[in-house]
């Protein structure tokens, strides 16, 4: 009998070309996604006089800098225009397929990869973006890398890595109405801490996770990095295979049957060992919001923000004071008493069709008390939402319906939260200044953002769902 293996081990060994004595493994990369931010890597590659080793396994998407308004016009800001042009030139020169600004497939790289069927179970996927962990939702081994590593992958289609430790996070039980993948993810992050999974690859399991749709699984795996994890994975199952079937780059016919047979073996063996096990009860997870400046500053909506005066540890007390000071929240204040200035629905975390439906279900027939922006995760999601009439619901509620991109999650395309303003946001990072200098961010699910919009303050979505069709 061979030793039982985890899904993480199986994925690793299937891509390990060689292992050095010091423990470094050379891994084969099946898919490499690049975006405007990959310009440092293309420069490094050119400086070394080399070219792209496997253009057929490399795909480009314009997302980080793209404008969400006036797509048919020339980009007004010359620096931003240059970032998009640079990606177009670099990919064209290297014969890399690019989904650029006016391509009907354009969108956020972590939405587009799965949507086009480029992301598949059993693949090793990298991208110069920390939220590459998203693709683990399909049972892919997917992680973010920096510019030097992007350059290395461009030139060799391989990467040197040390095998991470293995962590299993199990969530069992039925999530209640109004509680979704974002709440589960924030509950996990609050439990293990923003650096709790550092040095670990995560496998998510348990009945709560199994019950999630692919969109929900992507939200969960996307946020693995916010717990410090190297990657997050979910074993592929019938939900995964049903999502994939018929997508442009997915194998067809007999080739698909063969693939599904192989993918069905991508599970942890029953007696496989994990370096760390974490268990959560899915029955008791409530809608969650963040109050501070790291994603583990997360609490159920009916709670109060911490009071530094009641914190015994002086280092922690100082942290709490600084965070509350930046967020301009009085110690001990009830979360539901915190007024907001605007909302944002979008980002690689929560901008897929199911996310838009969840927000629209709350907003339908209601009006937002604050301004807000809705940026669908891809041009294809945008068309689908418009076909379902969701755009009308957002517009009638008083929110802006925009084009697809990273937008107000990172603010580098010009969509920012003005200094001092407070935003209820479906994004992934509540870091100081993340959504713009001086911006204050509260992370939550799309349904909770919608609840905050119609209430004008942080609010529990559950009473607002009474009698609604979901």
């Amino acid at each position, binding site marked *: 009998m061979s030793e039982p293996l985890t899904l993480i081990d199986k994925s690793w060994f299937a891509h390990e070309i060689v292992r050095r004595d010091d423990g470094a493994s050379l891994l*084969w990369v099946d898919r490499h996604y690049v975006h405007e931010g990959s310009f440092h890597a293309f420069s490094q590659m050119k400086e070394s006089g080399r070219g792209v080793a496997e253009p057929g396994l490399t795909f480009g998407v314009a997302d980080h800098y793209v404008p969400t308004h006036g797509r048919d016009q020339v980009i007004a800001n010359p620096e*931003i225009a240059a970032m998009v042009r640079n990606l177009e030139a670099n990919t064209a020169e290297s014969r890399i397929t690019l989904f650029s600004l006016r391509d009907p497939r354009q969108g956020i790289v972590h939405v587009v990869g799965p949507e086009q069927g480029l992301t598949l179970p*059993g693949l090793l996927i990298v991208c110069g973006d920390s939220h590459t962990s998203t693709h683990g939702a399909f049972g892919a081994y997917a992680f973010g890398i*920096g510019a030097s590593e992007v350059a290395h992958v461009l030139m060799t289609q391989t990467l040197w890595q040390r095998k991470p430790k293995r962590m299993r996070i199990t969530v069992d039980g039925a999530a209640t109405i109004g509680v979704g993948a974002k709440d589960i993810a924030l509950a996990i992050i609050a439990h293990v801490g*923003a650096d709790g999974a550092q040095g670990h690859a995560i496998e998510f399991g348990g009945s709560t996770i199994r019950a999630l749709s692919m969109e929900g699984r992507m939200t969960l795996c996307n946020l693995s990095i916010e717990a410090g994890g190297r990657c997050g994975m979910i074993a592929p199952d019938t939900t995964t295979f049903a999502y994939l079937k018929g997508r442009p780059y997915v194998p067809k016919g007999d*080739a698909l049957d063969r693939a599904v047979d*192989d993918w069905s073996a991508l599970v942890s063996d029953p007696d496989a060992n994990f370096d760390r096990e974490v268990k959560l009860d899915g029955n008791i997870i409530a809608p969650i919001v963040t109050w501070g400046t790291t994603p583990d500053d997360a609490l159920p909506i009916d709670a109060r923000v911490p009071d530094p005066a009641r914190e015994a540890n002086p280092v922690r007390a100082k942290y709490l004071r600084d965070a509350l000071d930046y967020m301009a929240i009085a110690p001990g204040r009830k979360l539901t008493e915190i007024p907001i200035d605007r909302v944002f629905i979008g980002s690689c975390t929560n901008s897929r069709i199911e996310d838009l439906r969840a927000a629209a279900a709350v907003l339908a027939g209601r009006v937002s008390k604050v301004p807000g922006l809705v940026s669908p995760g891809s041009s294809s999601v945008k068309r689908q939402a418009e076909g379902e009439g969701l755009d009308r619901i957002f517009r009638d509620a008083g929110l802006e319906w925009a084009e697809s991109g990273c937008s107000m999650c990172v603010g*580098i395309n010009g969509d920012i939260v003005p200094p001092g303003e407070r935003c209820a946001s479906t994004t992934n990072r509540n870091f100081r200044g993340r959504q713009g200098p001086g911006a204050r961010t509260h992370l939550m699910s799309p349904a909770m953002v919608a609840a905050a919009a119609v209430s004008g303050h942080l609010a529990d979505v559950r009473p607002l769902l009474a009698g609604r069709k979901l």
Partner: protein
Amino acid sequence: MEKFVRLSAKACPLPLPNLNTDQILPARYLKWPRSKGLGSVLFQDLRFDGDGNVKDFPFNQPIWKDAKILLTGRNFGGGSSREAAVYALYDHGFRCVVAPSFGDIFAQNAVKNGLLTAIVSDVDITDMAAAISANPERPVVVDLDSKTIACGNRIYEFEIDPVSRNQLLNGWDDVDLTGSYRDRIAKFSTEHRALRPWVVPARE
């Protein structure tokens, strides 16, 4: 890549936890080319307020202008994978960051650029910060071979991933090293595609 063996320099204490890459280098500077010198905007929003006024932040003190070692809190460099955060530290003059823990991607990016990430306990950070405050001019000595930091009157041991240590000590270039495995990569690639035909993207 520049080798890292031993460094004797001033160490600037910045004992804050969770200084993520958005704090190290705000996203609006990511479109700057490296040649523009990212060191000038390192920790920009912690150093200056929205109107450009200087805030109370260690870097703004002239004494730390030539510090090459940064002493900081846990979870340094978490968040975004932006390697430009490492460029900003390096361009400012830093060659070593000492902290209780680092974001994984940041630590990988650091080693590729010759920046040492040394892991010590919270207690040792506090201890070293106190010694430095008592005598800021006294150099701190970081020795990668023995994995030690001499600070004040004590020697502290630090941890680092053995692969990163090897790479820094030897100044290895990854791409050159990978080139020596060219034949094995080609063989792997052929076998991988034969064994798992679905790894190749299907034609649209």
